[in-house]
């Protein structure tokens, strides 16, 4: 839905442009943002209003065309029109990446593809091709029908197709600075926790032999968090992330075979903490596979899926940055998008952004909301 806030309108429009641009195009977005703000101020004779922002946006043109000019793709790849090349490639990579991550995670658990799909594949490989073509046809038909309803939308509103393509943009967003801080704190916290003598007594004999490796891995994860917190996304940090992903997958295979790591757990009973033998509790002849093994398998599966995804994204981004002529280390970006508007906490404290101040300087008595009505 369209907003009356000119900065929000500009952000929404740039979000649409972003969908069609290659991953490393944040500079282009910033340049366009400055243009739209200055043009809106010029049209509004010093004041940026929703109306002046919309006029500036309309003068800039269709997001697809603007992005296509910028990206300079200007060529078709198979049946895909030039402007859709970037988003289509990105969403395909996301889908293939997620599928690869799940297949690798599932094969680690010993689940075959046919079990995963719920049936044996008949008439291989023709049936696969027919299924793929049928699905593509159905997807195109559905998107075509939905897109018909998007024709009347203003330039600042994402179309349905762009919302789908937007998932590709989100999938490759750099790690947020708070996430990096979380990695740092949680890595140290869990590393120390696993080393406490009170915890070590709970481990199974097999896990006791390897728990220090897990601790080292957690501390390395904390170092990775610190590196991202300080340097943002750059080739060095991405390489560390990729390497840690590979190490974890190798390690997860060992951990998966070791099985559930806790022989006992602490329980609070009769006014004190006591050790409870959890593995013995679940070891009854009626249960073929203990729920603890299932829980452990799921935990390992999720961590492997995440690691595979990180390896794919790191490899892609390092290649992209090397192609752009970047070296190993530079001050990279974090995932949080720079908002043009004043954050809520600043507004509560009574701070306003420069545009609001500017409005107060130039305005002739009317308010923004009055004008936009």
């Amino acid at each position, binding site marked *: 839905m369209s907003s009356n806030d000119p900065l929000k309108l500009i952000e929404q429009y740039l979000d649409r442009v972003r969908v069609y641009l290659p991953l490393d195009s944040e*500079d*282009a977005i*910033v*340049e*366009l*943002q*400055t*243009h739209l*703000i*200055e*043009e809106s101020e010029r049209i509004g004779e010093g004041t940026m209003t929703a109306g002046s922002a919309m006029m500036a946006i309309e*003068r*800039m*043109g269709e997001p697809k*065309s*603007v992005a296509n*000019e*910028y990206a*300079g793709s200007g060529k078709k790849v198979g049946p895909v029109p030039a402007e859709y090349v970037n988003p289509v490639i990105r969403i395909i990579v996301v889908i293939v990446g997620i599928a690869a991550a799940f297949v690798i995670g599932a094969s680690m658990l010993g689940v075959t593809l046919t079990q995963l799909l719920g049936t044996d594949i008949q008439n291989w490989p023709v049936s696969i091709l027919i299924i793929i073509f049928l699905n593509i046809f159905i997807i195109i038909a559905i998107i075509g029908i939905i897109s018909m309803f998007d024709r009347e939308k203003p330039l600042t509103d994402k179309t349905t197709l762009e919302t789908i393509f937007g998932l590709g943009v989100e999938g490759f967003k750099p790690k947020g600075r708070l996430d990096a801080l979380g990695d740092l704190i949680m890595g140290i916290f869990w590393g120390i926790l696993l080393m406490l003598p009170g915890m070590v007594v709970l481990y199974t004999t097999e896990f006791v032999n390897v728990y220090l490796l897990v601790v080292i891995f957690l501390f390395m994860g904390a170092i990775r968090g610190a590196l991202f917190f300080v340097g943002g996304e750059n080739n060095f940090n991405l390489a560390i992330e990729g390497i840690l992903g590979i190490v974890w997958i190798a390690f997860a295979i060992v951990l998966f075979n070791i099985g559930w790591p806790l022989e006992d757990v602490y329980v609070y009973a009769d006014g004190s903490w006591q050790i409870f033998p959890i593995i013995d509790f679940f070891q009854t002849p009626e249960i073929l596979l203990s729920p603890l093994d299932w829980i452990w398998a799921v935990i390992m599966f999720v961590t492997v899926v995440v690691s595979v995804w990180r390896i794919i994204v790191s490899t892609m981004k390092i290649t992209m940055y090397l192609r752009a002529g970047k070296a190993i280390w530079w001050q990279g970006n974090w995932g949080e998008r*720079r908002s*043009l508007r004043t954050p809520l906490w600043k507004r509560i404290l009574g701070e306003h*952004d*420069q*545009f609001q101040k500017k409005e107060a300087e130039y305005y002739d008595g009317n308010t923004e909301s009055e004008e936009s009505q």
Partner: protein
Amino acid sequence: MSMTKKTQDELDRWSKEVKRGAVTLAILSLLSKKRAYGYEVVKLLDAKMKFLALEQGTVYPLLRRLEKRELLKSEWDYEDPAKAKKYYTVTQEGLKALGAMTQTWSVLSREMREVVNEVE
């Protein structure tokens, strides 16, 4: 004399081709005199060269292409964080290209004037 649709189409096509060549020279000339950021370049072109009247979205990609071809270099100015400005200047290579283009343009425009005058 009013223009027919066919004449208008031909004029549009021809204008597009002329603009394509002229805009690089115009941008290099403007930026050789003083550095400017994208929006300034758009406004300068608007003010000084009505004929070029480029779509706003097309100036930026062109600046980027010229930068890639090392005819321009850029520098970010974050003094106003909400309106970060990418300033463009002409490189040594760009100045050499500009000199050669200007010479060619002078010869071309003189010769064109002569040819067109002969026809008239």
